[in-house]
């Protein structure tokens, strides 16, 4: 009994630690008070202000679009790359694997300044292109790392069988290999979106002036004492939190259903 109580206490402490700040932010997003902690009656004022704030709305849109662009590029390039690595000779594959691991192991600030240096050498101005490249660099390795295990799990004879049955190599790749590794590709894509949305440091070093993502905007707003947008950011955080809870729950139920479906069919 005591043991069980201690177990529950530890778990409860962990959850309390993680969720107290988030919970407070959500609660106080429903009152118009400027400082967190003073309750000035229930209202949706902050949400109305947020949705009327064209600047923040534009930044949210830009952040999401950037994450989608970068992730689509990373997913395509990374999937092609993973297939290439998987079928390459040992030396070429090893070299590519080392390159894949560099941005994963490297400190983000080092990746960020290295990109800043080459873009400064090529052109003085940072552009949307340099920002996009930056986000592809930080997300691409994770797509490759998600796809390669699926290639390893795949039955190698499938591709040969397709060729024997008269498929061209490219058709075999699209119709046989691709469906087999699709879960890895999807996982890589989702991971890429998450990493891109979450990024601050590489964004700060590759973005053109005047362009902001949620990360850079929030960081710069926090630095200004009593910034007028801070209360609205509470509402934004609450919305993002809600979206994430819904997405995670939906994905998990879909995953479980797929697994069950597979079990039944096997």
């Amino acid at each position, binding site marked *: 009994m005591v043991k069980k109580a201690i177990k529950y206490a*530890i*778990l409860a402490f*962990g959850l309390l*630690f*993680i969720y107290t*700040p*988030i919970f*407070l*932010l959500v609660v106080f997003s429903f009152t118009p008070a400027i*400082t967190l902690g003073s309750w000035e009656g229930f209202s949706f004022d902050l949400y109305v202000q947020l949705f009327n704030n064209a600047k923040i709305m534009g930044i949210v849109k830009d952040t999401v679009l950037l994450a989608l662009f970068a992730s689509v590029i990373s997913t395509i*390039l990374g999937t092609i*790359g*993973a*297939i*290439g*690595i998987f*079928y390459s000779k040992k030396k*070429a594959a090893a*070299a*590519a*694997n080392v*390159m894949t691991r560099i941005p*994963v*192991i490297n*400190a*983000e*600030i*080092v*990746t960020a*300044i*290295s990109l800043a*240096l*080459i873009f400064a050498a090529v052109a003085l101005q940072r552009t949307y292109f340099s920002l996009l490249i930056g986000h592809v*660099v930080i997300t*691409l390795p*994770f797509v490759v*790392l*998600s796809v*390669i295990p699926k290639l390893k799990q795949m039955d190698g004879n499938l591709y040969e069988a397709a060729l024997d049955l008269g498929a*061209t*190599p*490219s058709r075999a790749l699209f119709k046989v290999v691709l469906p087999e590794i699709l879960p890895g590709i999807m*996982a890589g894509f989702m*991971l890429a979106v*998450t*990493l891109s949305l*979450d990024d*601050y*440091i590489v964004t700060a070093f590759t973005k053109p002036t005047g362009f902001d993502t*949620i*990360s850079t905007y*929030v*960081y710069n707003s*926090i630095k200004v004492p009593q910034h007028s947008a801070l209360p609205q*950011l*509470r509402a934004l*955080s609450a919305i*993002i939190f809600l979206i*994430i809870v819904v997405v*995670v729950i939906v994905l998990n139920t879909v995953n479980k259903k797929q697994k069950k479906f597979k079990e039944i069919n096997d």
Partner: protein
Amino acid sequence: MTLRFSRKQLIIPYSLFMVLFVVIPLLFIVYYAFTDGSTGGFTFGNFLKFFSNSTSLSTLIISIGIAILTTVVCLLIAYPIAYILARSNFKKKNVLLMLFVLPMWINFVLRINALREFLDLIGLLNKAHLFNTVLGMVYDFLPFMILPLYTTLIKMDKSLIEASADLGGNAFTTFTKVTLPLSLPGIVSGITMVFMPTMTNYVISDTLGLGHITIIGKLIEDCFGSRNDWYLGSAIALVLLFIIFISMLFTGGFKDEENGARGAGIW
């Protein structure tokens, strides 16, 4: 479609991209680190500048200190949680684990802002800069420690524990002689995911340390911003790369392919 190509040629576009935007940029850092800003000649001066300056040296030491402290605290909190989750008979284990790692998906600047507002509310924000910084780091990186620990603990063969008990080992011996050594891979990959980012994530130290705590990442950022000394900044980056390399040798981070990926496997 009459696309004719061999499968291994698919490696080319990827490798080209990585050489162009990962390898060459790193060579730029090396070039800048060994270049004299005023003459353009070869020099060790940038490194001398870094190692002879007591402020930057203390920054390096503080960063390592904060990183060690954060990693240890994360491990001490994450291990019991991961252990209980992995061992429990809760029907909804997965849901509980999900609750613990869910914050990973929320933008970290927003999360740190939430913590900042909370610390402000309880009156701690202006008082304990170092404590707040470490707290923020733990807050941000805890899920990255819980996840690999849980993964190794759940995979562990439970009969080993029964065997240890049958052979007369008490709960403590079983833990120190069986469970702990077997969970070492999880501990190592957790440490890799927490230690390095902690040394350089200056967003957290800036937001919660209110500018009183400078870590090595901030120093590099300053060199590329207000101090405008790219040569020194690149030299510091190389020092950092060296530290990463050393810690990778210790943790064997070059070897494990699946655990090393930050957040890989969460989807």
